[in-house]
């Protein structure tokens, strides 16, 4: 009986996640971007012989696309981070935030991809390859017992605790952290934690999990194994899926809609159109002439010029 509850919960969570994110995207996409407000972070295209920053100041769609790839996969903007010490007026480059963020996100991506092994049968080769690459770290005494430690399990913890630590230690970060910021991190840490416990410390019925997972994707539900840690993990994942569309976590989709980064720096070459551009109501030459008739006539009398020794 309790098994059905979890099947239901998981389906609902997936549904909320998918619909929620789509609605978000739909709402954003419906709003126009009135101006090309690209933030160029390098030399624009102008004279051919000037060295130009192709991907910081993209001119074509293709260059803009590469810029976005850099943002999404390498967090290039965070890479540029600096720290300013107000007391002493010092300024240095800092990469901590970048490091934690990239460690967390890449590990998360790989971990999610590895989860595909539960939902497929047979398991695609590239997943298996990913799995074995991830598991290059082995500890233990060779003659007795070896444990494969997945690299991403370590790096995701590094990333998550790094991000959490920043918010605890940094005065600025602490002041701007809202409860929802803590919630997101703690939710993910708990999810990751329950997963890691299952992997290394608490044997679960992997066969049962796999049957359940395949049941989910084939719409042929099979009840999950009634295992404390697995059910906790499943509940946390569902909570995360439900929480995702309604929180800052939608930044994953939102970054693609950020006009400072996804527009090319070419508004002088290609006219950018604002769909709601209002009509011009400023001054016209006629009104202006009316106002300053005498003076404008005087300039005309002088032959439209001043100076020249005359």
């Amino acid at each position: 009986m309790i098994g059905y509850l979890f099947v239901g919960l998981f389906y609902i969570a997936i549904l909320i996640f998918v619909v929620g994110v789509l609605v978000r995207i739909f709402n954003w996409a419906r709003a126009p971007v009135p101006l090309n407000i690209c933030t160029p972070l390098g030399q624009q295209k102008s004279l051919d012989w000037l060295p130009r920053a192709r991907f910081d100041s993209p001119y074509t769609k293709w260059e803009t696309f590469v810029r976005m790839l850099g943002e999404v996969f390498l967090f290039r903007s965070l890479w540029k981070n600096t720290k300013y010490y107000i007391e002493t007026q010092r300024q240095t480059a800092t990469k901590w935030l970048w490091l934690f963020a990239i460690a967390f996100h890449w590990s998360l991506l790989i971990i999610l991809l590895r989860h595909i092994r539960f939902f497929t049968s047979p398991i695609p080769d590239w997943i298996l390859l990913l799995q074995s690459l991830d598991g290059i770290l082995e500890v233990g005494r060779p003659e007795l017992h070896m444990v494969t430690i997945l690299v991403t399990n370590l790096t995701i913890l590094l990333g998550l605790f790094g991000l959490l630590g920043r918010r605890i230690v940094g005065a600025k970060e602490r002041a701007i952290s809202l409860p929802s910021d803590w919630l997101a991190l703690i939710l993910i840490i708990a999810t990751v934690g329950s997963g890691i416990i299952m992997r290394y410390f608490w044997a679960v019925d992997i066969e049962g999990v796999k049957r359940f997972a395949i049941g989910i994707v084939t719409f042929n539900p099979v009840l999950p194994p009634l295992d404390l840690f697995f059910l906790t993990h499943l509940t946390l994942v569902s909570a995360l899926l439900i929480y995702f569309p309604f929180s800052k976590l939608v930044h994953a989709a939102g970054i693609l809609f950020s006009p400072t980064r996804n527009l090319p720096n070419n508004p002088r070459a290609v006219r950018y159109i604002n769909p709601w551009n209002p009509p011009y109501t400023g001054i016209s030459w006629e009104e202006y002439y009316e106002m300053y008739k005498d003076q404008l006539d005087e300039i005309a009398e002088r032959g439209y010029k001043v100076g020249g020794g005359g």
Partner: protein
Amino acid sequence: MEEEGKIKIEQRFPNWSDLLKPITEKDFKKGIYHYPARKSDWEGAPLPPVYTDFNPLEKDWHLPEGWKETFLSKMDEFRKKYRELFVWMDICVRCGACADKCHYYLGTGDPKNMPVARAELLRSIYRRYFTWQGKIFGKWAGARDLTEDVIKELYYYLHQCSQCRRCSVFCPYGIDTATIVWIGRELLTHIGIGHRFSLISIAACLRSGNHLGLSPMGMAGSLESAAEDIKEITGVDIEVPINKKGVDILFVAPSGDYFATPHWFTLMGYLMFFHELEERYGITYTWSTLAGEGGNFGTFYTYKCAQDMNGKIYKEAKRLGVKWIIGGECGHMWRDKHQFMATMHDIPDNLEEPVNPITGTYFENAKSTKMIHILEFAADLIKHNKIKLDKSRNNHWKVTMHDPCNMARGMGFFEEPRYVVRSVCNYFYEMPEHAIREKTYCCGSGAGNLADEVMDLRMRGGMPRAMAIRYVHRLYGVNYLATICAIDRAAFTALLKYWKLQPPVMHGGIFELVGNALILSDEDKERELDLRGEPLLKEEEVKEAVEEVVTAPTKEYVCELCGAVFTDLDECCEHAEKEHKIAKAACDMVCGEKR
């Protein structure tokens, strides 16, 4: 910091829930809060017909009937009109990467001046009224009610942003607090709250064509006296065309250039440059009195103001029948010309795609708007050796360059000015890397903050920039700050003096340097003065002056952190950077002369 002894930066971080609480008029600081708009200016601008007459220091701001509903309905309208607002309200993760990037935060230490906190001022309202989480969980979801105090806070902090976009450089999603502030200021106008300094200029510009409200003859007179000044220094008679039809080029400059000092010398540079092109190549141009303002204070106020202000340029280009347009040295003007103008107006069909008739260079990057920067044009001419220059006439200047925020992060304009500066003077030094190019620091007075009543804010906000200038001044003896922005040229006068840099560090436009170096074909006497009327250095004097800089630091420098001794300040700085992670910009904190 002590030596200036005037600014004290206090930092105190509240917890998240205190940060959500609005400040009130009691917390407004003199020198930081702006004066409200005057009724006459309000009425001269395309703003909603609800003017609020308020005194920022009084409790009751006399907000109009139903202000709350108006504000919220406009906010709803704007998020549907501006995707950037909508997306950015939703996705900020409060990572704080932007926090210590804002010069106002650095200078005031006020946590609400962190860009993320500035955006949260609006975001918290957005959450409360437009998301269910905010409606249900209130404060716990980071939401807060829209009260009169919140409006006060918005007024206070939205005008402590110079829309420099520096925060946007470091944000992983490119969230541009400047744009949020822009939209926020427009929101305030819908409940009648206006900003005096911006609106004075906007209203004047809509009436007279320029921010200063100069009449056509006022402008003509100015240009005439600049021509006279040139005559005095070079002996050449210069004719300045105004409102002339049928010429090749319409030239548009910020009005500060023909009115203020040190802008004036830049204006002289423009006039000499165009005169030379006409003499040598028969290229004709004209000024326009109606399109006598390149700047556009609307670009940081409201969309409609911006639109009504930049429209006149295409209108005049059409009426005068020119082929294309060149723009002068100004920062926010170019954000407008690069990103806004052609979207807001139809491009007149008499304009042609800009091709330099002298070199044949096709300015593909401006093929739609038909407007190029005078430095793009000059760089092209210099590259092809089409104008004669005598660099040594700028030998009395050791130059560094300040990238104006809008030229940098609104346009990506870095190499053209540098190429020109290097071509017209012998001594050019860069400020430290975190303070130039796309990471450039604001002068502290942009986007309406040039008002006198916010002098404290300006001097504080300009501090990171001033520190970087001080660095190159001490290290290389820099005595000229080149900047291609009219606001800067006005702002640095106060800033450099405040930070005890001026004199000796003077500031001005790049075209002043071009004007100095430019050899006019009809110039027959040896120049003895630069455009400022200062004597040029003779060959021998140059050598001496240079040697002085090169030899001066034979003294010894000591690193105060470890006691290491160097014969060269540069080396000491490098050491400090390597060993103690002290940015070069701040090297003077640890490297001192050995006593």
